[in-house]
């Protein structure tokens, strides 16, 4: 009992540090607590309940928004631990699984960006925790909370809710419980087919190579750490002999893996949680095994520990430098003050949502658009960027009613290797006037007449 209390205490400290490290580094670097990433700006501008909640908190105090996110993360961590204990995992294994989750970028990134997904994960964890109390009325309350998931979340949340209810029903084998399953199916059908709720919410995802989207070390800001993946593989191999006990986890793992590969990166949170079960098993194996050489065991643990911490630190540093940085914030603030409402700003799609939120101006392209609109705007954006015919570029800019062009350093460096073609070349024309240039950001005014 005392051992468990100590473990939970350590888990709490590790989780707080992991969840708060990225925002803290960002605060130290830029001196501001503005949310980061497209996900944040998408939900801050959401017209539904989530947007009102997040933007309301942000308006009261930026600390309040981060307070909500970190608290949600912390509560989720404790709920995961508690759920694992209720599923009869040993104290050490439950603590390892939860601790590894808390240190993983896939988990931390969900609680560093205000989003509907963040609250839905908390909601689902809470439902599962209530269900696993195995007390009739608390379980029914948990199932009732699950019924609300399809109405509030996306398709993956609904599938996870269904999976939890199905596992509970197959365990209890009470016939009445199957009514809940039926209720969930009806709620899902009602929400996505009758009400026409989109299957997926959140900003448009840019397709990337599987490994680049899955493994943190290959460039994604979320994702799984390489060492945790190795531990998961070890755990997977070890559990294969007792496959019957892990059938539900294997099934969910396979489902969410296929969903991640073919459908959406938003399934990563559930995929990650399934993988953590195996990672914990792999870690337990390394911990409990009788080693011939204790020094070698310690060396391996040192390397694995450093590898995991390295991933956590890497994520925190990436988060701290993620867009929008101070230079972009200042540029957008200037744009807000100096431009008129209704004017259109052309920039890379990464800057689209910050332009809309911080400058309050219409971005030519942003990831809050529907997928089809985004793709057609993206095609147009590439034509404008890479056109070798200046007259054509001018015509496209006029036709799309562009008033301003916002160029950052990354755009200039990455997109235009050749200074003599593309948008940079066209800016020499008299119709363009550079109205802002500071810290690598340029804003050009385009005189259409």
């Amino acid at each position: 009992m005392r051992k468990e209390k100590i473990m939970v205490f350590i888990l709490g400290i590790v989780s707080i540090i992991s969840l708060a490290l990225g925002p803290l580094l960002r605060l130290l670097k830029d001196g501001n607590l503005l949310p980061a990433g497209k996900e944040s700006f998408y939900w801050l501008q959401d017209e539904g309940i989530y947007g009102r909640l997040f933007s309301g908190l942000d308006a009261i105090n930026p600390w309040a928004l981060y307070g909500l996110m970190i608290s949600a993360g912390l509560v989720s961590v404790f709920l995961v631990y508690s759920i694992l204990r209720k599923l009869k995992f040993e104290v050490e294994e439950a603590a390892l699984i939860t601790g590894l989750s808390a240190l993983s970028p896939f988990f931390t990134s969900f609680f560093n960006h205000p989003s509907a997904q963040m609250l839905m994960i908390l909601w689902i964890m809470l439902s599962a925790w209530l269900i696993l109390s195995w007390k009739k009325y608390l379980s029914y309350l948990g199932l009732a909370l699950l019924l609300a998931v399809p109405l509030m979340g996306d398709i993956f949340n609904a599938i996870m809710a269904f999976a939890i209810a199905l596992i509970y029903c197959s365990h209890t084998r009470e016939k009445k419980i199957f009514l809940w399953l039926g209720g969930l199916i009806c709620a899902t059908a009602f929400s996505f087919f009758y009400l026409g709720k989109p299957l997926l919410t959140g900003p448009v995802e840019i397709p990337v190579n599987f490994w680049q989207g899955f493994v943190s070390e290959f460039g994604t800001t979320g994702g799984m750490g390489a060492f945790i993946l190795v531990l998961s593989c070890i755990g997977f191999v070890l559990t294969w002999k007792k496959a019957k006990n892990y059938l539900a986890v294997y099934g969910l793992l396979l489902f969410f893996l296929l969903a991640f590969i073919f459908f959406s990166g938003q399934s990563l949170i559930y995929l990650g949680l399934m993988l953590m079960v195996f990672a914990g098993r792999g870690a337990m194996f390394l911990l409990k095994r009788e080693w011939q050489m204790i020094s070698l065991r310690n060396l391996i643990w040192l390397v694995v520990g450093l590898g995991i911490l390295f991933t956590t630190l890497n994520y925190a540093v990436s988060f701290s430098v993620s867009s929008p940085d101070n230079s972009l914030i200042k540029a957008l603030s200037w744009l807000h003050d100096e431009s008129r409402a209704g004017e259109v700003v052309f920039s890379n799609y990464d800057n689209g949502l910050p332009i809309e939120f911080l400058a309050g101006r219409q971005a030519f392209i942003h990831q809050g658009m529907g997928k089809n609109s985004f793709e057609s705007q993206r095609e147009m954006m590439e034509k404008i960027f890479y056109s070798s015919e200046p007259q054509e570029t001018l015509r496209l800019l006029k036709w799309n009613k562009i008033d301003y062009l916002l160029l950052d350093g990354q755009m200039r460096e990455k997109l235009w290797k050749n200074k003599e073609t593309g948008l940079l070349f066209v800016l020499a024309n008299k119709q363009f006037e550079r109205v802002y240039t500071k810290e690598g950001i340029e804003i050009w005014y385009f005189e259409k007449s």
Partner: protein
Amino acid sequence: MNVWWKKHWPKLVLGLIFALTLGIRLYFSFTSQTFTYESYFTLRQVEVIRETGLPAFDDHFSYGGRFLPFPPFFYYLLAFFHLIMPLKLVGQLIPQILISLLGPVAYLIAKKVTNRPGVSLFTAFISGFVPAVFKETVNSLSPYTLIIPLVFFALYCLMRLENKRYIYYYIVSVIILSFTHPVSFLLILGLVFYLIITRIEEKKLDRQEGELIAFSFFFFLWAQIILYKKALLMGGINFIWGNVPSGIMSYYFSKITFIEALVAIGIIPFIAGIFIIYKYLFKQKNKEVYLSISFALGAIVLLWLGLMEPRVALMFLGVVFVLLFSEAGRLFWEYFLNTKFVPFRYLLLAVVLLLFIFNSIYPSIELMKEKEKPLPEETEAALWMKGNLPSGVTVLSTVEEGHLIAAVGEKRNFMDANFILIDNIDKRFQDLERIFKTSYEIEALDLLNNYGASYIFFSSQAQKQYDITKLNYLGSNCFSKVYTNEKVKIYKVLCGVERK
């Protein structure tokens, strides 16, 4: 005296073999005026480490300026010796000493497998003359001169785990290999195949072996993440394939035929090795032989996946087959001693030795002579550039000459053999070829201006590579010859292309 000789003769003969191998290598090393092209990258890194204490990860000369991550241990090792010796002497001496240590390592492995000093000494002797290894390592400041003996030393340590100090030797070897070159992944992959083969063959794995293999894997992974963190974030998983231009990849693979590969490995070790692989995979079981077989499999898999160049794979395969040959040699010798031809055993030894001279030693020397390296005139021209061209200019040359331009000429190169993290590498490679081959001045000028190249290093190497005798567009006033010797001409680009 007789007793002393009986006890120590293998060591004396091994010492002689080491001295002979090293002597031959040093002969070629000291009689050559230049190193291989890629050695100039090493020379530059050693000099930079000597001056600044750190390697040139932010390389101002390569591709006009770029970030280049690489494991630095080998360069630090040479820089250490540079503290007490001139750089040229370090380059000529230290790598040859390192690669010559392969002989004693091969002896130790062969002795462990066969328990026969005679066969083991013969293995040590022929390991010094694997044609693929000889070709790539004489006159070369390549990290492979350290990696090859160290990988096989690690293998030997795995065979000697009953002695605790070999466990520490193994750990140190893995640490050094992890920081020397990513091709050390071959050790990890070989060990994974070893695990699989021992499992299939129902041979029990020692707990210590399993623990050391786990340590190797985790440490190597961690070291590569630390070294290549920035590159992985920038390049993603494609970074692992080295970003080699497709034009060069097809050149690497089309260049080698089966017969050439056989000659590079050594015909007799190859045949003997195949026999041993067959015998011990399908008829008998021997864990120590499985280690060698696993390495061969690892090299083949990496070659097949395009993660290893054919010339590198042939080096490792050549050594593995020599080690497998030792077991074949033992079996053959034991068989022979039971035949009626036993009085002719010394004649047989002489015949085998002659066969090896013709099949391994002679091809080693011939292949080594074929290895491309800069002519003295090229280094002379590069030295001229150092003193006479302004700093910050970009010089166009062939890919192989890129390191020479950077290291000796101290000028920015257009392209060199470090392809990783370079955007549009295929286009760049094609443009390089076009600049050399085009007949149109406007096309050449357009491409040269595009990349900011203001000088062309036109050597006999470029002529041979692109099958040209001259640059066809030099007639106008847009190019001025600023340097010439028998093999190299350097042209300055005087014009630009205006776009409307």
